């Protein structure tokens, strides 16, 4: 069997091995290849950069298990940026699991010397969607008497500074849609329209298009969509993480398949031509 025939019939297991490597290598050590920062992500980053150091941010963890693959990496990348700017962080969640994701993501702030209760807090889950968010906006400690870890919120130093939504310098929602939790539209109404707090959004890939209108209207200062946006943001804050790993592995896997397809076709045409020439 000559090389051209072999290339048309490569053993499946060779491909499986290469595919496993294409996914495993970036998982173990991110390559950080090939992500170009798109204008939408750059805008969100520039907006957060423009905030004064030492401000206060509220982040809504409005997503459920299954969507954390897109949204956890986005949250972590932004939290790195907030940490480097000494912005205090208050997390709230409209899904029970959201509070758990918040806990995982906020742990990053310890790297920046943050202290729980003083510089950041995870207030936990609230039921009731927009109505509760509105109540939170006018009196945060009335809605969350205790935080997720069980402390009295009135005794936490960070909550002394925050009497209403207007005390935040920015708001962010990490959102997987309006079903069950608080949607992006509700955040626009409660943060932007009611209290004039600038808002950025992180959403799953499929929700990008429908939320683009808020960016057009200026009600949203920047939008991150899907795993890809997380990878771009990680590049901007120079902390390669899960987003980069994910996109690296995706890029490698897609490229590998296309290379195999091209090889198979090239070999087929070359061997046809060789046979044609011989005959």
């Amino acid at each position, binding site marked *: 069997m000559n090389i051209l025939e072999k290339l048309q019939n490569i053993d*499946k*297991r060779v491909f*499986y091995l290469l*595919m*496993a490597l294409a*996914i*495993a290598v970036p*998982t*173990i050590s991110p390559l950080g290849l090939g992500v170009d920062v798109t204008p939408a992500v750059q805008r969100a980053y520039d907006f957060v950069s423009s905030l004064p150091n030492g401000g206060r941010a509220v982040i809504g963890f409005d997503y459920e298990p299954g969507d954390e*693959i897109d949204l956890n990496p986005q949250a972590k990348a932004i939290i790195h940026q907030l940490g480097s700017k000494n912005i205090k962080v208050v997390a709230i969640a409209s899904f029970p699991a959201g509070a758990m994701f918040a806990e995982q993501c906020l742990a990053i702030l310890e790297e920046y010397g943050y202290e729980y209760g003083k510089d950041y807090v995870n207030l936990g889950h609230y039921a009731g969607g927009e109505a509760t968010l509105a109540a939170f906006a006018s009196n945060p400690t009335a809605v969350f008497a205790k935080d997720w870890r069980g402390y009295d919120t009135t005794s936490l130093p960070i909550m002394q500074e925050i009497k209403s939504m207007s005390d935040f310098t920015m708001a962010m929602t990490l959102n997987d849609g309006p079903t069950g939790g608080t949607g992006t539209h509700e955040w626009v109404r409660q943060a932007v329209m009611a209290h004039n707090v600038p808002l950025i959004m992180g959403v799953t890939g499929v929700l990008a298009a429908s939320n683009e209108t808020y960016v057009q209207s200026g009600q949203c200062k920047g939008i991150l969509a899907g*795993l890809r946006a997380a990878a771009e943001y990680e590049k901007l804050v120079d902390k390669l993480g*899960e987003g980069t*790993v*994910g996109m690296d*592995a*995706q890029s490698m*896997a*897609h490229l590998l*398949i296309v290379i195999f397809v091209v090889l198979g076709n090239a070999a087929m045409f070359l061997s046809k031509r060789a046979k044609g020439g011989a005959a």
Partner: protein
Amino acid sequence: MNISTNIGVWIGAIAALGIYSVLIKDNPFYRLVEHIFVGASAGIAIVTGVQTFKSQAWSPLTSGQWALIFPMLLGVLLYARYVPQYSYLNRLPLSLMMGAGAGVAMRGAVESQIVGQLTATMVKLTTLDAWIIFLGTLLSLSYFFLTYRLEGGAAWAPRLGRYFMMAAFGAAFGNTVMGRVSAAIGRFQFIFLEWLGL
């Protein structure tokens, strides 16, 4: 390296390795994982079924919804197949399930799939894109003529229709790769990060 001490993580990781081993070839490791998985999931199906039966049939029956005795009797008749001289009785419950299934299939087909798709195609044909969608729909539908043979000048219609379908299939294929790779990334992260703690 900081290997996990959680027994659940270990089981999950070993199961994943067993499944992946089938990529090399069928082997005892895969076979064992497969059998345990099938046993557990079929068991879960039975447990769920019993719970459904209790909440949907038994409790309402005992609280006065006597009509539910009929589906239960019909359900028992399914087992008539094991008794040769009465096996024909199991056609009664089967015919109920088939009839109801056919009714549901029929009403769903008209609503979302025929009328909805037809109206979606009736758009202003003022752009090239609109024409491509319009012609693509008509031509690929023409492929499905089963008792009329399009001849002469019309014979190219089903063939072009197949081309449009192939384009759609290629697109759906390419578009699915990302989701499938994501699933593998999830498993690999589990193996390397959660289990082995790399």
